[in-house]
């Protein structure tokens, strides 16, 4: 079963991050922690953005590079031309040594301007928040930084992920930091979540692939049962980064069999709509694909 997400409006797959996004992620073990950073770095490089990685202090640079540098040494050219930079919060705020939110925001703003002046499409930064204790910073200061950083993002080509290790921070701190960010990204590649969206829509988030098809189908079946009295169901696919043929056909088949429903509205992007039509959506009278602009 995909997990239910109560505050689903914030959550998106990492592949959906766009310039101007400020996102939270948390992780709980040393394997999973690399999945989001690897995707974030590699997609940023492919989109022509400059990428800063500020790993958790204490993790050797060699390990960071080995994790993101697969297959083979494929990110070496990006490092050689200055597009991919491994750094630290301590280094970022130099020549100052004491962290302040204003100082950090100023440095990141300047780094964004420098990246665009160098010809990159923008700047993205992955910041593991392990630096907070390493620099003796206060969590309260960080929370105010996270909620007061809009000027760094609004209308600017800057994207940031702040990563919190759930083993280092109290649960209440992690929850507060998640609330302090406008976005949150899924912790793992290939994961699927569901959430209640606007108008009680069933929102799918992440990747509806073959491995997640049973969970995808189960969620739809539950929602069809729940909405039987209303005779209307809205399914939102716009926060899916991947929709397999199997899941798309399952959606069409379930809608076709939902004889008690007058309408199954499917909110989707243009590619998903084209896919559903190719797979026979027009033959399901009660199903209405509605193309919407992706909310991110």
């Amino acid at each position, binding site marked *: 079963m995909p997990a239910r997400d109560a505050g689903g409006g914030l959550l998106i797959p990492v592949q959906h991050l766009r310039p101007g996004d400020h996102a939270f992620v948390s992780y709980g073990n040393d394997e999973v922690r690399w999945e989001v950073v690897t995707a974030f770095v590699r997609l940023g490089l492919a989109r022509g953005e400059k990428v800063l990685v500020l790993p958790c202090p204490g993790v050797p640079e060699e390990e960071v590079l080995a994790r993101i540098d697969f297959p*083979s040494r494929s990110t070496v050219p990006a490092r050689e031309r200055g597009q991919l930079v491994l750094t630290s919060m301590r280094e970022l705020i130099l020549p100052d040594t004491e962290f302040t939110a204003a100082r950090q925001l100023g440095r990141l703003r300047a780094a964004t301007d420098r990246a665009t002046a160098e010809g990159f499409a923008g700047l993205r930064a992955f910041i593991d928040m392990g630096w907070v204790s390493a620099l003796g910073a206060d969590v309260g200061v960080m929370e105010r930084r996270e909620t007061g950083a809009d000027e760094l993002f609004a209308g600017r080509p800057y994207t940031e992920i702040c990563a919190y290790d759930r083993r280092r921070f109290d649960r209440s701190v992690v929850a507060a930091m998640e609330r302090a960010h406008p976005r949150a990204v899924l912790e793992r590649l290939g994961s699927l979540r569901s959430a209640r969206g606007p108008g009680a829509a069933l929102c799918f988030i992440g990747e509806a692939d073959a491995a997640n098809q049973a969970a995808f189908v189960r969620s739809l079946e539950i929602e069809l049962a729940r909405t039987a009295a209303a005779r209307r169901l809205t399914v939102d696919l716009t926060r899916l980064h*991947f929709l397999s*043929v199997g899941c798309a*056909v399952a959606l069409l088949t379930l809608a076709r069999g939902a004889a008690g429903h007058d309408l199954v509205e499917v909110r989707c992007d243009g590619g998903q709509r084209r896919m559903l039509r190719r797979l*026979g959506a027009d033959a399901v009278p009660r199903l209405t694909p509605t193309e919407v602009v992706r909310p991110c």
Partner: protein
Amino acid sequence: MLNPEPAGQAEVPAQEPGRRLLQRRFTARLLPQLRLLVEECAAREGLCEPRRGEFVLAVDEIAGNAVEHAGGSGRLVLRRVGDELECRITDAGPGFSEAVIPELLPGLDGAPKGRGLWLARLVADRFAVSEGTGASGAAGAVVTVAVRLR
């Protein structure tokens, strides 16, 4: 996170056309990472949406078919060949011919199989199925899907 398989231009056989971008062995567990790597290469080569998403979908459907029907694993090679992005997926299963892919989309009440490869062929600018080398006894299959970049 991933099991790196050495790849790189220096290892490309002299007779292989184009420029090799990616070479990976995969299992079901590695399909999400495989999609990420294919998407990354496609973006780098300038394949724009919505064609990039369609290409990743086609690759996933072919790779998933290899996982399901050909022993749980396969091998992917992605190349830039002229103005095309070409993906070749090889498996060590019993092999199959393009004739098993339905010409017309099966109805929603029809057989549940074949739609993935049907859609992969539909979105491709070039698509072919051939027999593998059969190094391990089984014939195997090689499925090639390509899209134009311009």
